[in-house]
């Protein structure tokens, strides 16, 4: 299967199963399409000659066939998807836990209107903070269940994790104290709304957190509409100076300023510009995921406008990079040469198996988005995973288990999409959230186009 598309003035061909990416001219672009449809070569010659008249010579056409043959021979074009057999072994695999999302605070000091965590209450759970003992047990559970994995990831999440900063510090110290004897390397990360940032917190995070995610929705009016404080005031003026200070002190360590766009700001390229112009160079803006009845939820009819914004954003990324002031957009990053292996691409995020969420009470869920949903509790940090029926279901969650993914060109880049989104829209984890799929496809196209443009100097 090949995916051909035109973007940013480039004719791009993605050979889906091999991951090869080619930039071609109009003639070759058409010929590859016709070859894939098994049109006989003499007929292809007739079609392209009629279409392009004298623009291409017989030699050009012959060279194109020769290139097509060479690429096919080299396994870079029309490559067959032979990974289904890998999945069979895959289901039998023994999984280990390698990442935890620690819900260190089921409470929040903002009242964001799209919050899937219900401002920390997660489907009616009470507001509370995780005690140190629970977090400590969670880290022990992770070490004990991580097999031979060296790198262990722990994200401090909420609610707002800085509402429980003392416990964050204690847990980082505890994790570090166990690294050597357990032969593990903890990668701590923290997601914050910024309200409680100060120099002590910033210095601690810059020393200990391998990545920080700083929540900001872009323009002041957009951010303040969606991310008000609990008493209804805007958060922009409080958090932006703190984020700028944080990032200045962070040096070259990883961070993301992360926003969410909703139906109310479909022109989110303007929010990207705001963030970039504030001096942030690592930016992520995600589509909101809400049930269709929400006034903020994205609708099918919004897709063309969103794709237009992605095009503008991609062109801007190219412009900024060529001007020597590069800005990274999370969803446009694609590692074309050193990306993940097939196993990772088939199994995706690892929710419910390699990646679990821990509530303040120590309960385990498949991921942060499933916390508090009936039937998804997997066990706790003392007993471990006891709901093995549920984890087996997640274990089988892969690209080939999803009907919609089988013929999608993006399947090895999103790995079948988000299980929680599938559950939200279809009531089970083996489907795919259709709007999310279309946006993912568009983002992949933009990401590859950016690679093409930046290699074209």
């Amino acid at each position, binding site marked *: 299967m090949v995916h051909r598309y035109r973007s940013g003035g480039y004719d791009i061909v993605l050979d889906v199963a*091999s*991951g*090869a*990416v*080619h*930039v*071609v001219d109009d003639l*070759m672009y058409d010929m590859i399409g016709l070859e894939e449809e098994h049109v006989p070569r003499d007929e292809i010659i007739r079609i392209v000659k009629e279409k392009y008249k004298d623009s291409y010579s017989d030699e*050009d056409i012959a*060279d*194109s066939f020769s290139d097509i043959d060479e690429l096919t021979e*080299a*396994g*870079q074009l029309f*490559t067959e998807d*032979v*990974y289904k057999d*890998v999945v069979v072994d895959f289901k039998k695999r023994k999984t280990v836990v390698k990442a935890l*999302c620690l819900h260190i605070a089921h409470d929040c000091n903002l009242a964001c209107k799209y919050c*899937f965590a219900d401002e920390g209450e997660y489907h009616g759970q009470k507001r509370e903070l995780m005690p140190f003992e629970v977090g400590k047990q969670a880290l022990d559970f992770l070490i004990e269940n991580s097999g031979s*994995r*060296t790198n262990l*990831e722990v994200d401090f*999440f909420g609610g707002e994790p800085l509402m429980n900063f003392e416990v964050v510090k204690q847990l980082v110290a505890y994790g570090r104290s166990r690294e050597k004897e357990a032969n593990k390397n903890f990668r701590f990360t923290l997601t914050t709304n910024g309200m409680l940032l100060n120099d002590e917190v910033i210095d601690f995070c810059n020393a200990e957190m391998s990545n920080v*995610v700083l929540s900001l929705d872009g323009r002041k009016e957009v951010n303040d509409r969606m991310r008000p404080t609990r008493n209804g005031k805007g958060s922009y003026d409080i958090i932006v100076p703190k984020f700028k200070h944080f990032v200045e002190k962070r040096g070259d360590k990883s961070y993301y300023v992360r926003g969410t766009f909703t139906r109310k700001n479909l022109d989110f390229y303007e929010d990207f510009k705001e963030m970039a112009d504030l001096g942030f160079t690592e930016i992520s803006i*995600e589509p*909101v995921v809400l049930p269709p009845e929400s006034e903020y939820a994205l609708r099918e009819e919004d897709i063309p406008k969103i794709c237009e914004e992605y095009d503008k954003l991609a062109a801007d990324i190219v412009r900024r990079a060529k001007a020597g002031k590069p800005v990274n957009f*999370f*969803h446009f990053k*694609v*590692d074309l040469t*050193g*990306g*993940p*292996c*097939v*196993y*990772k*691409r088939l199994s995706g*995020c*690892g929710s419910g198996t*390699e*990646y679990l969420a821990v509530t303040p009470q120590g309960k385990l869920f498949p991921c*942060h*988005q499933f916390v508090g949903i009936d039937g998804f509790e997997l066990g706790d940090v003392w007993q471990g995973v006891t709901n093995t029926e549920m984890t087996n279901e997640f274990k089988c969650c892969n690209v080939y288990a999803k009907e919609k993914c089988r013929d999608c060109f993006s399947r*090895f*880049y*999103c*790995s*079948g*999409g*988000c*299980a*929680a*989104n599938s559950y939200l829209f279809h009531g089970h984890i083996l489907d795919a959230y259709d709007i999310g799929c279309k946006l*993912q496809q568009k983002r*992949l196209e933009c*990401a590859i186009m950016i*690679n093409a443009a930046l*290699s074209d100097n």
Partner: protein
Amino acid sequence: MKRVKTLTAGTLSNTVAKGGCGECQTSCQSACKTSCTVGNQSCENKENK
């Protein structure tokens, strides 16, 4: 190759033999939390380098 510029020759099938070590980052731990993207991640398997 006269009429093609190949950005990447593709390495997916090569990773079947040596892949699966699991040392790479969990995708939702980065910056998404509401979607699933793996194509932007890097392989951390030293044997594949």
